[in-house]
């Protein structure tokens, strides 16, 4: 382990440990990109294979997906504000914006759960066809990631209250923010290549 420290720059980059963790997390996100790419490829290959189940065009609703997109994009923005406050040294601002971010994320999840239940009622479930398996697993994996992200951020909120801002807590918050933005990017791809295309084809 290394204990080298720097006295300038953002907190999270001031220790060698912080720098390594952040680099490691970027690499992890690279692996996550591969994971989601594989799911997207699977979805693309199985597109149209609905068997006897409803077609996506009949079920997808522009209203809900737009609302979800709006919630998640906004949450990415508020997450950015949270980090901005952290850099400015404002613990209170950080906590406030983080809570707003999580609330938006919860809203997104609520819609997603509603959506899945609704589709199931209409006869499109994980089991009904190859296409719907691919859809639920792709969107569901993203949803599970969002859920984990929320749980993780809640733990960090507690630590922020307990310990305030220091190189360790700010590194952790920074890493969770990277994760959050990443999920947003993935969602944009889901929104366009799953929902928009699914609605017109």
């Amino acid at each position: 382990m290394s204990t080298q420290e720097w006295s300038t720059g953002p907190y999270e980059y001031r220790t060698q440990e912080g720098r390594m963790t952040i680099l490691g997390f970027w690499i992890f996100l690279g692996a996550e990109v591969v994971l989601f790419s594989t799911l997207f490829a699977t979805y693309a290959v199985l597109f149209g294979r609905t068997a006897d189940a409803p077609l996506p065009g009949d079920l997808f609703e522009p209203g809900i997906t737009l609302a979800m997109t709006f919630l998640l994009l906004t949450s990415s923005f508020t997450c950015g504000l949270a980090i901005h406050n952290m850099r400015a040294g404002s613990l209170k601002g950080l906590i406030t914006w983080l809570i707003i971010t999580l609330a938006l994320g919860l809203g997104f999840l609520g819609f997603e759960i509603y959506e899945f239940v609704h589709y199931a009622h209409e006869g499109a479930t994980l089991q009904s066809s190859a296409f719907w398996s691919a859809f639920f697993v792709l969107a569901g994996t993203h949803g599970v990631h969002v859920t984990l992200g929320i749980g993780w951020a809640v733990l960090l909120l507690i630590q922020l209250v307990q310990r305030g801002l220091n190189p360790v807590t700010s590194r952790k918050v920074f890493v969770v923010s990277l994760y959050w933005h990443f999920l947003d990017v993935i969602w944009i791809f889901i929104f366009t290549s799953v929902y928009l295309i699914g609605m017109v084809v």
Partner: protein
Amino acid sequence: MKLDEFFVTGEPLIYGGMVSIVLVTSAAIFLLTYLKRWGWLWQEWLTTVDHKKIGIMYILSALAMLFRGGVDALMMRIQLTFPNMNFLGAQHYDEIFTTHGTVMIIFMAMPFLIGLMNIVVPLQIGARDFAFPFLNALSFWSFFFGAMLFNVSFVIGGSPDAGWTSYTPLAGAALSPGPGQNFYLLGLQLAGIGTLATGINLMVTILKMRAPGMKLFQMPIFTWSTLVTTFIIIFAFPILTVALALMTIDRIFGAQFFTLTGEGMPMMWANLFWMWGHPEVYIVILPAFGIFSEIIATFARKQLFGYKAMVWSMILIAGLSFLVWVHHFFTMGAGALVNSVFSVSTMLIAVPTGVKIFNWLATLYKSRIQITTAMLWALAFIPSFVMGGVTGVMLGMAAADYQFHNSYFLIAHFHYVLIAGTVFACFAGLVYWYPKMFGHKMNERIGKHSFWWFLIGFHVCFFPQHFVGLDGMPRRIFTIIPEWMPLNVISTVGAFGMGVGFVIFVYNIYYSWKNSPRETNGDAWDGRTLEWATPTPVPFYNFATVPKVSGLDAFLSMKKKGETTFDETKLEAIHMPSNTGRPFIMMGILFFASFALVFEWIGLAAVGLIGTLIMMGIRSFDYDEGYYVEVDEIKKIERTVRGL
């Protein structure tokens, strides 16, 4: 579920297996209790975060897995010696070739190499540990419990039987009901977590923790091969994660990815599997290249010829390895254009590989070769591996592959690359770095015996398989026709020769522990790279003072200048991570969850998963910052190990 459905019944061989498991476990428990070693086991090993100890645990587990996979292999060879043998039934034979392949690649080759990387890479770059020591321990336990999960299948629930490639629809729920295939899916998934984590960990370690002054193109070649391998791991393993998860969801939750119903697509599995699978074969061969490069340079007593070309060819191979996966199923019928493209990309790989072969030869050219056991393995590797490469190019010609595919010719090909490449490298690497790990060399005379048995056995076993393959013998059959008998008899004899070689190798570990003279200085082979700069036994912090590096073969120039890694004027307190039992516990809980999922006990699996999440939460609140080793203590330790 009744007890006789839970345990595998009715097979005398498996009853034998059960009895030996019970005996070995009781003996281990008895010995640990009798010698009062439980505390030692927990404190020194199960909770360690020291990369050297974790590496040793990897290698010990891999040797055990090599034994298991080897026994599988010998049983298959016995069954195939004569026509109409009744040693293994069709079902049992299917199970055994499945577990043999899976164990050898996932639980033997990879962990063996990762074990060597664990021990050697930090030492070669002048680091005191991994970037993330806690994560490293987690990786090991994930591999260990994954291997356990896969291995219990033969006594509990029944082994998977759809091949290590587990093609659907055969491996799907409709045609392979029961827990067997689930063991494959979840065992690999559990171990895969650790592999990915190790990939990230090693990459950050190499990028961020090199000794001051060491540029990327001054790293020892084994470290380079590791860096390139981590790149492949990071980009290939998530594909396996997804493929396994999709099949698991198919089997347990009734999805339709790879099914014949609901417009599922069985061939998509083959694509996903090989998009990971071909890079995987390079994950196990590139580190082997690295090991041989180190050994050849050391015992040819020369700088490695064409260092830069060696590095670039590895990078090229890594890139190409993602572009050839279709060559595993040319016969799927993707069409002439697709097959031609993948045919060409496949053959392209032979180019950088050839570059490496010539560089090794050029290193050896006009050098004073020291014939040690490690060097023998390396020298045998070169021609043997070339034969595997040549058959590889033959298989890569799509039109010809329609004949070779799934015959014993293919079996011969991949054993020539995997055994002469990876397995030889594991043995060579272990022999070479053994003094660093255990403080004494392995006996050279016994080592050479084991080498010759293994080498000759290997060629006797696999060379005839080329011909019996061309005679039309398909792989994965459990009985042969009389025409194929002579070559199969020879093959079986060879297999037993390799078995003898392995037994001698393991005996040598015991013999050397008892008899080898202990090392007095750390530089057992008059080495060139930094791992030999540390004293033996290596102190837990590796380097008392980290040397400044200014070129290739850093230790060689240190020796010339009379420098050591113990410069009393530059000593500072060293920061080290604390031991922790949490990786072990966390992965134990995940093992429990996976086991429950194998039997589709969803409730229990959920409990285990929640337990794992709780462990992760606890970890998040852990602010243990490790501890410092003070200068006085470093001085004391260094003086003892250096005999000052």
